[in-house]
């Protein structure tokens, strides 16, 4: 059993162990949840250390046939896009178990068992390389979150749980039909029935997958996939379930199930590489939705009186930035989008956690019941400020890096016209300004002014163990802002490969199957044949701000550059 399978399997084993433990042993349940999460975090760091940053192919892969008759297999592997998401998932699970002490009051056994099922299914989602396996984990994660909202949530939890489940299940069931249709398309074009992502992408890369499939099939399947992921992300107008979940769900479910962006991950993993002929044309519509989401989320965040809703709508806005980066489909944008998923989990995770801590202390979520907290909770205030500036995107914090890259990406433009690119970038930048507005309003309401009622005066500052947990996240915020190369270096090659898979013509797209291919430092695609390294395609930007609106393509696909290995 390999490293990746261990990371997926251990949480499920842990969940069964918790299930078999005595009912009343609350601290045992919590300890088990925490230990298993820590083991996963440790294993994910081992995975990072074994990860080869110069390779865009899937690494540490494991393959076992599952349903040979249908070409379904247990196939896992990691690349630069999933690497940090796995680390983030394990980290947020540790933090989630750590801070769930305020939520797990009744039925702690079921709580931590569900947390671990959620952890295992999230890690599985990121590591799966088989469509059906991916779908299995993707859907499995719905169950724990829905039940956690239902049992431990507050407010109108029935509506929140049903909305969560029905939105996400309804969004993705069509994707399952779509996956089956892709597998049969592969059989029709290449003669093998397979749900293996690498094989399907190889067929998409040489153009055979969609050749002769008509004008309808590829766009239909693209939108079936995109819809599932846009709902899961969520992009405006599908965000209502997330706002409900943020406010009603226990903190563990928010951190692990809602913050970790499997939706935007799915967009990068499936929608871009598998539907190269459609993704470009669809980008304008999706970018428009992203920009609307940025502005809409930021505007609504500014007028909320419920502080958890402020964070929820700011999260809608952040997801807009992530999708903006991904669908601008250039080097900066894509790295910004992929990185954004990781950074958003840390910054918004810290923010919602801090807000949750005072909400459970005061048993109120209304901003008007707080005020003047700065004097009596200095540690809390300073940590809150760190998370807040990261959410705004101040230079020096991780939020700045990802949002700035996304904005540059949007400005450099995707497949939309130059005017549209400038408009997208300008409007999105207005979202950054709005973020300052709503965040500072929130900070002012909580920490300055008069204390509205006497009970606020009894609020104590953070306990030391809480400070330690939050400090980890604060360190990561600055680490990501000051030394982003730690994280971007691992992402670069995979992001470049995904970009070239989408924007290049057939035969010039990278293929995850072809081990001789590599991405050079210039972002071009090279192939190693008989000791020589051949440049296949060198598409730095497709449509820069000034000229060349069409995908850059070499007239002669093969051109010998250097002798010997990859530079």
């Amino acid at each position: 059993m390999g490293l990746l399978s261990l990371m997926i399997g251990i949480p499920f084993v842990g969940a069964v162990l918790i299930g078999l433990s005595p009912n009343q042993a609350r601290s045992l349940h919590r300890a088990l949840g925490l230990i298993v999460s820590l083991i996963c975090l440790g294993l994910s760091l081992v995975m990072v250390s074994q990860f080869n940053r110069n390779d865009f192919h899937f690494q540490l892969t494991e393959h076992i046939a599952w349903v040979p008759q249908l070409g379904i297999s247990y196939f896992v592997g990691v690349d630069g896009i999933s690497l940090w998401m796995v680390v983030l998932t394990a980290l947020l699970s540790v933090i989630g178990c750590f801070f769930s002490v305020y939520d797990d009051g009744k039925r702690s056994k079921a709580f931590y068992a569900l947390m671990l099922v959620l952890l295992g299914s999230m890690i599985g989602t990121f590591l799966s390389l088989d469509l059906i396996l991916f779908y299995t984990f993707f859907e499995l994660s719905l169950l724990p979150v829905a039940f956690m909202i239902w049992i431990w949530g507050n407010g109108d939890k029935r509506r929140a749980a049903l909305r969560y489940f029905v939105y996400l299940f309804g969004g993705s069931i069509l994707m399952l039909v779509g996956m089956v249709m892709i597998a049969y398309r592969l059989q029709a074009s290449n003669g093998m029935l397979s749900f293996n992502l690498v094989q399907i992408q190889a067929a998409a890369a040489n153009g055979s997958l969609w050749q002769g499939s008509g004008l309808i099939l590829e766009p239909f399947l693209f939108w079936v996939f995109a819809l599932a992921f846009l709902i899961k992300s969520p992009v405006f107008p599908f965000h209502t379930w997330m706002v409900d979940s943020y406010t009603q769900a226990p903190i563990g479910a928010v951190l692990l199930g809602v913050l970790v962006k499997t939706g935007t991950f799915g967009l990068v993993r499936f929608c871009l590489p598998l539907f190269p002929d459609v993704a470009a044309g669809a980008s304008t519509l999706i970018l428009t939705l992203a920009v609307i989401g940025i502005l809409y989320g930021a505007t609504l965040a500014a007028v909320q009186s419920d502080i958890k809703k402020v964070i929820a709508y700011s999260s809608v806005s952040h997801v807009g930035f992530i999708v903006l980066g991904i669908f601008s489909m250039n080097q900066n944008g894509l790295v910004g989008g992929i990185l954004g998923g990781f950074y958003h989990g840390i910054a918004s995770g810290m923010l919602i956690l801090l807000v949750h801590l005072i909400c459970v202390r005061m048993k109120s979520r209304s901003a008007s019941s707080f005020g003047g907290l700065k004097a009596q909770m200095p540690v809390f205030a300073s940590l809150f400020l760190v998370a807040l500036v990261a959410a705004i995107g101040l230079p020096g914090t991780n939020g700045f890096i990802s949002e700035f890259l996304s904005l540059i990406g949007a400005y450099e433009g995707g497949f939309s016209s130059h005017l549209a690119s400038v408009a997208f970038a300008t409007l999105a930048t207005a979202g950054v300004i709005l973020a300052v507005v709503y965040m500072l309003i929130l900070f002012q309401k909580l920490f300055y002014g008069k204390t509205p009622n006497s009970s606020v005066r009894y609020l104590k500052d953070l306990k030391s163990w809480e400070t330690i947990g939050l400090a980890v996240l604060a360190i990561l915020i600055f680490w990501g802002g000051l030394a982003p190369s730690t994280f971007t270096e691992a992402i670069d090659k995979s992001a470049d490969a995904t970009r070239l898979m989408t924007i290049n013509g057939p035969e010039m797209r990278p293929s995850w199957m072809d081990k001789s291919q590599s991405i050079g430092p210039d972002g071009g695609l090279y192939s190693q044949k008989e000791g020589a390294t051949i440049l296949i395609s060198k598409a730095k930007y497709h449509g820069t701000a000034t000229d060349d609106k069409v995908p850059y393509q070499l007239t002669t696909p093969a051109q010998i550059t250097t002798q010997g290995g990859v530079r």
Partner: protein
Amino acid sequence: MFPTLPYVDGMALGPVGILAFFGVLTLILEMLSPKSKNNWIVGVTLLGIVSAGVLLIADFGGMPARSFGQMELHDQLGSASELILLLVALITTLVSEPYLREKKIAFGEFYPLMLWSTAGAMVMSTSSNLLMIFLGLEVLSISLYVLCGLNRREGKSEEAAVKYFLLGAFSSGFLLYGIALVYGATGQLELAAVPGAWSTGVEATKYLLLGGFALIAVGLCFKTALMPFHQWAPDVYEGAPTNVTAFMSAAAKIAAFAAFWRLITAFAPSANFWLVPLGAIAVITIIGGNVLALVQSDVKRILAYSSVAHAGYILVDLLAHAKNPSIGITSMEFYLLSYALMTVGAFAVLTLLAARGREVTKLSDLNGLWKRNPLAAVALVAFMMSLVGLPPFAGFFGKVLIFSDAVNAGLWPLAIVLGVGSVISAGYYLAIAKAAFVDEPSESPVQRPATFGPQAAFFICMVGVIAVSIFIGPIQSFFQR
């Protein structure tokens, strides 16, 4: 001159014979043993089921072979259906005794009747002779009519028995009339004769065949509870004792779908004439069954409509087979296996709700089940999620296989309808799971000590719905053996 005996394949008929024999044996035991204890009868019933199962597995599949003067057909479809039927009988036997005691209807006759019913279902699924199919169906049904009315003191149970009997007899009439028409067209009772008659026959023969097909299909639609022939199902499922509901919801469907499959295979050349009406039935069943389930408040009625909807899902697979005959039985059999595990499992959990001799199956009666019987609550959640079609449970792979067949046959609109139906179904399945796993008990319900049999049944079904999806590859190869 002595007539020569036809070829007899004892191994193939063995499981049916064993069940029938053990039925008689348990009946005798019932007469001899005291009424206060049925443990012996349960033990002997289990022994019969297990030995039939062993024989069946030993002789599973192989090349299709006929015996008993062409009356009995030994093939993968029949063997797989028989195996699933035995599984259903096994689980039902495990949960029945405590429930029957609680409801004060612990008649030992339950066990022989159930065994004979299973035997009838097995005969029905292992023949392509229309008369044998009819015989099997009647043996299955007549035992079920009696079982439905087992609780003589309860009005609902009597109503269920009478309703089921009248409508069942009515649908048998359709079936017989259809058989007569097919006999008129082909001069044989054998379904295998139909394709030849269709291709060589004159126009009048074709009309006869189509008329016969339509009537037989209506009869089978009654038995499988496809809309609009489903009206009996909710009332009968609700009124019958819960363990009988568990048995009937799966057994009747498994046998009827096996016969339906053979019917569709035989009539595949004429598919153009009936694919659209049957497709419409599938769409109505999937959407209608799920929507009607949403508005019920009695758990047994919800599950009755859910089983109507699932029959629609299976019909999609049959239609894919009709359009593309190379699509084999594995998808349908896998679906029936997962359906049997999750539906019988769910009804088995509901048997826990009987209290003080009464049937209490309102949704709110499930509240706090997690406190009273954690295993049952967790198992029920697993069954519900499997019925929704959530991975990694069996129902998910059942749906993937049906999607796959539908897309393969070019029937992807039906696959999309199936997907929409699953989304609707999430509403009521989640409500059941929530009642059992989330809600606090409203009042102090009757606390019954957990007994071994039902707990074992829940465990088998719960592990089953996860295990069959992990081992789906080997299971598929086994069905094709």
